């Protein structure tokens, strides 16, 4: 016999609930019984990440005054056709171009999720090209500042040489 709630799994639990003196019995599978029990005790299934995110996005996209209005309300990504409403509902972007298209309005979302709006990690080896060098340069410069503040001058000199080398590389392409 199948579960009367999900109609998928076999029923193995005899569920009885009494609400306002009215008794109701059902045959349920274990999972549905657990979910109902949790609900009866005031717990609800964990918030789904996408729903949660959609809530965040809805705040951002539902009230255009909070973000810089780049795209008109109800706009869609020109590359894949994803609409703002779709995005706010699902929490998923449609393609790489969406990031450019919805651009500035996504920034508050990034800040809330990541506390940051700029990538500082790995860059693709083949297509990353110049980006790789620039990122490495920035990291070396940060290390140099740290070395100087700690008065590690030998290390600082090494870093300075490495930075010059990279800057030369960048200039000469």
């Amino acid at each position, binding site marked *: 016999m199948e579960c009367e709630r999900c109609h998928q799994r076999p029923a193995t639990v005899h569920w009885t609930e009494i609400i306002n003196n009215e008794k109701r019995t059902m045959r349920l599978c274990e999972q549905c019984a657990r979910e109902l029990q949790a609900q009866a005790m005031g717990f609800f299934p964990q918030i789904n990440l996408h729903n949660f995110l959609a809530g965040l996005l809805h705040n951002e996209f539902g009230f255009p005054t909070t973000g810089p209005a780049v795209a008109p309300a109800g706009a869609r990504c020109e590359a894949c056709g994803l609409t703002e409403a779709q995005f706010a509902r699902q929490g998923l972007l449609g393609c790489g171009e969406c990031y*450019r298209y919805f651009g500035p309005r996504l920034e508050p979302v990034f800040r809330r999720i990541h506390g*940051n709006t*700029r*990538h500082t990690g*790995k860059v693709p*080896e083949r297509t990353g090209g110049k980006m790789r060098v620039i990122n490495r340069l920035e990291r070396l410069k940060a290390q140099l500042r740290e070395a100087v503040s700690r008065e590690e001058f030998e290390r600082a000199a090494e870093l300075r040489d490495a930075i010059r080398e990279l800057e030369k590389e960048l200039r000469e392409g």
Partner: protein
Amino acid sequence: MSIRETVNNPHSHWMDGTGPESDIVISSRVRVARNLAHLPFPHLLTREKAEDVIHAVQTAIENRVFREKMGRMELTRMNELTPVERQILVEKHLISPDLLENFERKAVVLRDDEVLSVMVNEEDHLRLQCLLPGLQLNRAWELISRLDDALEATLDYAFDEKLGYLTACPTNVGTGLRASVMLHLPGLVMVNQIKGVLDTITKLGLTVRGLYGEGTEAKGNLFQVSNQVTLGQAEEDIIANLISVTRQLLEQERAARQALFRERREQLEDRVGRAYGLLKHARVMTSEEAMSLFSDLRLGINMGIIKNIPAPLTIELMVLTRPAFLVKVTGKDLSPVERDIYRAQLIRKKLSAAQQS
């Protein structure tokens, strides 16, 4: 090994118990999300375009340079597998449950030892995963980064100079990296400190969830800790942060175990002994009961209370006694009650075989 062996053999390298700190850290996992440029993300792909993605990946892994760098990896379309076999890949943690939805459009790439895998057309076009036993996050990142480079040699990724690797969900953008450790923390649970410890972790930009079951009610006392932030930190920093938090957790767990041994030795030995007795003699066993008994048994083995059972067997049993594997082992569809009977039988068999060897 091939996909056939993968779905027939419950064992996987990550269950070896060989890595550092493997008494508490069961496994380390690193995954990165990548997408191909100029194509909609999987949830908007037409069937033909989804097929194009699978084809592109197939071509990339058959490329000579890829083979030289990474060795042979095998692509399997999800529709080549039976539902039970697909579920087994989930139970072995090689793919996520999401890969089972709309499975006709999805594929998995596996290396023979199951350490490296790539999910194709999950939430992103590519999800590269590395799974190793014990605390080996740096090694896992190294392997993933190499696989990533080898794929990128022929595939054009969706990448933005400012935002990094572009992903379907904005929670993954930037590095696309999710690093996690699976921890066995029965000591902290028993001394009622787990909630405080886990609350603290979430304040450090990390997420904790029960591996089976939610929150502090995690079945088998297995917890997965992972990074939340993917944008604005370099991969190495994300991983270093997770490692240092993991080390603190290890210290806390060990302190909790020592306290239990010192203050409540009889109760601890009793609990372990009862678990061992039940596992050896029970005739009907639910999955939940088994998980919590495996946890007690594992704790007993790690603390030297039980001597003749190898600790990795407890993890293998956790996977082997999940529903899909039971169906595979017995070769037939089982009702939940039958499953509980077969589960108990299989556990008895495995434990007595381990004792004799």
